[in-house]
C-alpha cells in the first residue's frame, strides 16, 4: 500500500459524529499510532457523544468517561493504577476538546503535566464548544462568530485572540509538545510515535475542523485543515525535550483563502482580515525566532 | 478525672507539653485525652491546650471549664488571660516565673519555677524563643503528684524530636527547683 498510515483500525465505523468531523479523524490517527495497548479517557465533549448511546462503544480499547474538568486527573489515576499493576507498557491517553482543555480543564491538565505522569494529552481543537452548539471558548480565534459572540449591533464576533494551549505547555516545560493537523496524518502519526518514545507527559494539539461549527462544507474538512497550515493560521511545530522545530510552508498563502471558505468568518471586513493577517505574521515571526532562524 | 489547662504562646511548646503529660500518664495505665484549642496559631500568639487524665475511659469531650490545674508557660500571659477562670477550689496554678509574679487570695495552690532559665541553660530553643515545656512538666510532676517524674522523663524520650538529654535534664532541674508559695 502506498501509504505509511498503519492499517489497524482501533476506532470503528458506525459512530455518531457529524459527516466530515475532524475530531474523529484525530482519534483514528492517534490510535493508529499507539496501537491496541491503550486506554483512553474523555471528558464531556463531542467525543463523549460520538461513541453513540449506551451500550455502544466505538473504540476497541477501554474508554473512561469523566466529568468536564477531570481529564488531567483522570489519566493520572489510570496511569498510576496501571503502573502499580505492572502494566507500564500501556499507553494512557486523555482526549479532550478545546473547552475541556483551554478552559475548564486547564488546571487539571497543567497539574498532571507538572507531576510528570507518563501520559498523552491530546487536545482536539475545534475552536469552540461544539457539543453544546458552538459557544466561544478560550481557543476560539479572533474574528470568529459563535452563538455567544454573535454578530450584533454593539458587539460582534470574538474580539480576543486564541489562547494556544500548546504554547502554554511549552512554557511550562512539558517534555514533548506538538501541534498537528488532520490534513497531515503522516506528520500527526510521526509526532505521536515520537512522543511515545518519551517516558513522561506528552501534549499534542490537533486542529480538528467542525463543518457545522465553522460553517464549511463537510467535504472541505481536509481542505480547511490544510489551508490553516498553509496560511500559517495554525503553524505545525514539534517541541521535543528542548528541541523546537517548525514546519515551514513553501509558499505564502494569504489568510483570506482560509477565512473565505468558512461561514464563521463571513462577516469580516477588509481591515479585520488585515488585522488577522498581521496577527498571523507576528506569530510566525515569533515561532521562527524561537527556532533560532 | 483530673483536668489541666495549659496557657502558652505559639512556639513555646504548650501543645507538645499537653501531649507529653498525656503520654506520661498513659505510661502509668491511665486513660488520657489531650487537645489544643486551635486558633489561628502563629508564633507568639496565645495558645491554649487541654489534658484530661482518668482511671477509666474518658467520655467528656468539651473544652475544660473547671480545671484542677492551670499551667502558664509564659508569665506575661497573666495580663492577657484570666488564669484562674473556672479553677476548682484548692486548684493548682503553676507559673513559669518567680515568687511574687502572681498573688492569689482565693486559696489556690500557687507554684513557681524559672523554666525559662532552665531551658536556656540546657540550650532548649534559642535565647529569644526558649522552649520551656519540658522544664514546666518536671515542676508539674513535683507539685501535682499526678504523674511521676520517671514517667515524665520516659514520655519526653518518646516524643522529643531532638536534645533528649537536655530535655531530661530540664525536667530534673525543674523538679528540684520548683517552689510553692
Amino acid at each position, binding site marked *: *500500500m502506498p501509504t505509511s498510515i498503519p492499517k489497524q483500525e482501533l476506532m470503528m*465505523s458506525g459512530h455518531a459524529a457529524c459527516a466530515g468531523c475532524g475530531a474523529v479523524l484525530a482519534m483514528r490517527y492517534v490510535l493508529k499510532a499507539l496501537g491496541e495497548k491503550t486506554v483512553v479517557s474523555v471528558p464531556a465533549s463531542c467525543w463523549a457523544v460520538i461513541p453513540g448511546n449506551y451500550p455502544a462503544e466505538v473504540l476497541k480499547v477501554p474508554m473512561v468517561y469523566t466529568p468536564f474538568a477531570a481529564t488531567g486527573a483522570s489519566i493520572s489515576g489510570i496511569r498510576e493504577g496501571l503502573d502499580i499493576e505492572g502494566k507500564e507498557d500501556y499507553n494512557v491517553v486523555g482526549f479532550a476538546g478545546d473547552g475541556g482543555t483551554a478552559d475548564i480543564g486547564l488546571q487539571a491538565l497543567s497539574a498532571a503535566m507538572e507531576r510528570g505522569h507518563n501520559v498523552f494529552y491530546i487536545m482536539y481543537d475545534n475552536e469552540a464548544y461544539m457539543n453544546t452548539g458552538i459557544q466561544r471558548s478560550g481557543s476560539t480565534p479572533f474574528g470568529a462568530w459563535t452563538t455567544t459572540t454573535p454578530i450584533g449591533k454593539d458587539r460582534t464576533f470574538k474580539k480576543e485572540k486564541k489562547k494556544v494551549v500548546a504554547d502554554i505547555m511549552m512554557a511550562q516545560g512539558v517534555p514533548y509538545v506538538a501541534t498537528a493537523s488532520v490534513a497531515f496524518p503522516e506528520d500527526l502519526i510521526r509526532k505521536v510515535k515520537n512522543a511515545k518514545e518519551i517516558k513522561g507527559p506528552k501534549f499534542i494539539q490537533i486542529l480538528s475542523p467542525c463543518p457545522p461549527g465553522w460553517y464549511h462544507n*463537510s467535504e472541505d474538512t481536509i481542505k480547511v485543515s490544510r489551508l490553516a497550515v498553509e496560511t500559517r493560521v495554525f503553524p505545525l511545530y514539534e517541541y521535543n525535550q528542548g528541541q523546537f522545530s517548525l514546519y515551514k510552508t513553501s509558499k505564502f498563502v494569504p489568510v483570506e483563502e482560509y477565512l473565505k471558505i468558512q461561514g464563521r468568518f463571513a462577516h469580516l471586513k477588509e481591515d479585520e482580515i488585515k488585522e488577522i493577517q498581521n496577527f498571523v505574521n507576528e506569530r510566525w515571526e515569533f515561532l521562527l525566532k524561537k527556532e533560532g532562524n | 478525672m483530673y483536668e489541666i489547662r495549659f496557657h502558652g504562646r505559639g512556639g513555646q511548646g504548650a501543645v507538645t507539653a499537653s501531649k507529653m503529660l498525656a503520654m506520661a500518664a498513659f505510661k502509668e495505665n491511665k486513660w488520657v485525652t489531650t487537645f489544643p484549642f486551635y486558633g489561628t496559631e502563629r508564633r507568639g500568639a496565645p495558645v491554649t491546650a487541654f489534658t484530661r487524665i482518668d482511671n477509666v475511659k474518658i467520655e467528656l469531650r468539651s473544652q475544660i471549664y473547671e480545671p484542677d490545674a492551670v499551667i502558664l508557660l509564659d508569665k506575661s500571659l497573666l495580663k492577657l488571660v484570666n488564669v484562674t477562670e473556672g479553677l476548682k477550689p484548692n486548684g493548682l496554678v503553676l507559673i513559669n516565673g518567680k515568687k511574687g509574679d502572681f498573688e492569689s487570695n482565693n486559696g489556690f495552690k500557687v507554684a513557681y519555677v524559672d523554666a525559662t532559665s532552665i531551658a536556656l541553660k540546657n540550650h532548649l530553643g534559642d535565647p529569644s524563643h526558649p522552649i520551656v515545656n519540658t522544664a514546666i512538666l518536671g515542676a508539674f510532676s513535683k507539685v501535682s503528684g499526678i504523674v511521676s517524674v520517671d514517667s515524665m522523663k520516659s514520655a519526653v524520650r518518646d516524643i522529643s524530636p531532638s536534645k533528649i538529654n537536655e530535655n531530661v535534664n530540664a525536667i530534673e532541674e525543674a523538679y528540684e527547683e520548683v517552689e510553692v508559695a
Partner: protein
Amino acid sequence: MVMTPTAYYPTTNIKTSSWRTSKPVIDYSKCTRCMICWKFCPDVAIDINENPDYEAPADRIKKMEAPFIDYDHCKGCGICANECPFDAIEMVREGENK
C-alpha cells in the same frame, strides 16, 4: 452482583447510511490505489480489499489492494471525492443511479 454503567457493543453493528444524502462512487478505471480516500475517511467507511484482482482493470500491470466503500456506514461527507487527486470518486445523489 450490581448493575454498572459499563458496556461494550461495537458500533459497527449500527448502520449510519441513513444519514447520507449523496454517496461516493469509485470509478476503478481511474483509481490508482493511492488510498488517500481511505486515509481521510472520518467514518472508517472505506475499507481495503486485500485481493489484488478486486476491480482491477485488465491492463493494470502492478495489481494492488483496492479501496471500497462500506455503504452501511458512509455518511456521505464527500471528503473522499474532494481529496481524490485523480477525480476517481464522484458524489451521486441517493436514489439516482450511477
